[in-house]
């Protein structure tokens, strides 16, 4: 069941490649705007790099959340999925996994390139990728709750940001904190461990909350 949902969503995403690519380009453009707005001083750019990359990742993940359930909701597939005897938990997990693979994983892969633009050292690049790889699943997980709650509402895309961005704050703090610790020569391990703990917690609880929200929204 899980594999089927993931596979189906991946095929759908492949047929609409432009959506996933536009998220990626949004991420790249937002990050590239900061040096233009702040100025090209290398020292300054290096010190703000973790925050900029992480905030851009948060904003970019907002873009794809609106699509997470909306298409299935419109063509009625979601109702069918709710009626299947398989646990909804797995369906949600599969859809979120596919969303992560198509919209967040490209960001993680692109991040080192942006880090180089900001003059970040190689060791720090590794930490940046690691923190994004651990943190972005949480963004997808928490975001799926917001997407399920705002399903079919008029101003859903703006609403999702208002609901979800405050809940992203711990991920932002630990994610950017890990990179910053690495820049100033401290060990990023404590941040990474806490980020991992949040990832595990959200993997356990978020699909459950999302399923509840889906049942409320579709009913």
């Amino acid at each position: 069941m899980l594999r089927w949902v993931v596979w189906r969503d991946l095929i759908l995403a492949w047929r609409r490649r432009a959506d996933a690519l536009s998220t990626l380009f949004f991420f790249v453009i937002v990050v590239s705007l900061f040096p233009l707005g702040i100025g090209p001083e290398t020292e300054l750019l290096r010190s703000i790099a973790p925050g900029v990359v992480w905030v851009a990742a948060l904003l970019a993940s907002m873009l794809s959340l609106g699509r997470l359930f909306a298409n299935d909701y419109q063509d009625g597939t979601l109702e069918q999925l709710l009626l299947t005897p398989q646990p909804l938990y797995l369906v949600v997990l599969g859809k979120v996994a596919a969303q992560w693979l198509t919209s967040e994983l490209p960001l993680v892969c692109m991040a080192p390139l942006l880090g180089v633009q900001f003059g970040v050292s190689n060791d720090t690049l590794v930490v940046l990728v690691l923190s994004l790889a651990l943190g972005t699943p949480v963004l997808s997980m928490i975001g799926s709750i917001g997407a399920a709650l705002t399903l079919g509402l008029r101003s859903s895309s703006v609403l999702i940001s208002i609901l979800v961005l405050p809940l992203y704050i711990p991920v932002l703090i630990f994610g950017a904190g890990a990179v910053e610790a690495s820049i100033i020569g401290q060990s990023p391990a404590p941040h990474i461990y806490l980020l991992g703990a949040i990832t595990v917690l959200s993997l356990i609880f978020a699909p459950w909350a999302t399923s509840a929200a889906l049942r409320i929204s579709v009913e």
Partner: protein
Amino acid sequence: MNVYKYASPTNFYPLAGKMIPWFATPAAILFAVGLFVGFFIAPPDFQQGDAYRIMFIHVPAAWLGMFLYVLMAIYAGIGWAFNARLASMMASSISVTGAMFTFISLVTGAFWGKPTWGVWWVWDARMTSTLILLFLYIGFISLQSSIEDPRRADRAGAVLALVGVINVPIIYFSVQWWNTLHQGATIRILQKPTIRGSMLWSMLILLAACWLYSVAVVLIRVRCIILEREQNAARFAEATL
């Protein structure tokens, strides 16, 4: 007397109407007494002068802002779990009061910070987490107001409030840690020298006043919500009482 009778919005409507004066009147009296003690009886602080008097409203507002969020989540959870309409209505009506108190505590905090710390805003752990709490309230209110079907609005709000409650401690600790990581010289909230009796009393009286005010306002607002959703039944219940 069957207490559960009042779990029905239509029965609760007239009861709430009768209860409101019993909370609103003491609230007004206690506000007057508390402000009088705070402004005229409590002596000026030897370090902060008269600026510390903002605390008399700041502290109760901050307490209520935090507490009402938890209370709202509990009501929303009860309303969702037991399909109790009244509890959900209470959650919606608490949310606005809670957001107001959180906002007041932020604004009064800024007013206190300017003369005391010299700045309007510091990215202090407590202030930042209060700001995030305000964002959570705004999320709850905007979600509920953008859903037209009241049943769905109640339940969606409940999910959001419960997710928020689980997140509040995580947010609080992460913000606290972030704060210690970033700020070299933190401005601590001044260690209170043993507080004078009249200062403490003023604060406690105003806290009680804010409590009573919240109850009264929440009841007024819940009456409005009942009227909006179940007009005919509520009017009928009050007429026959």
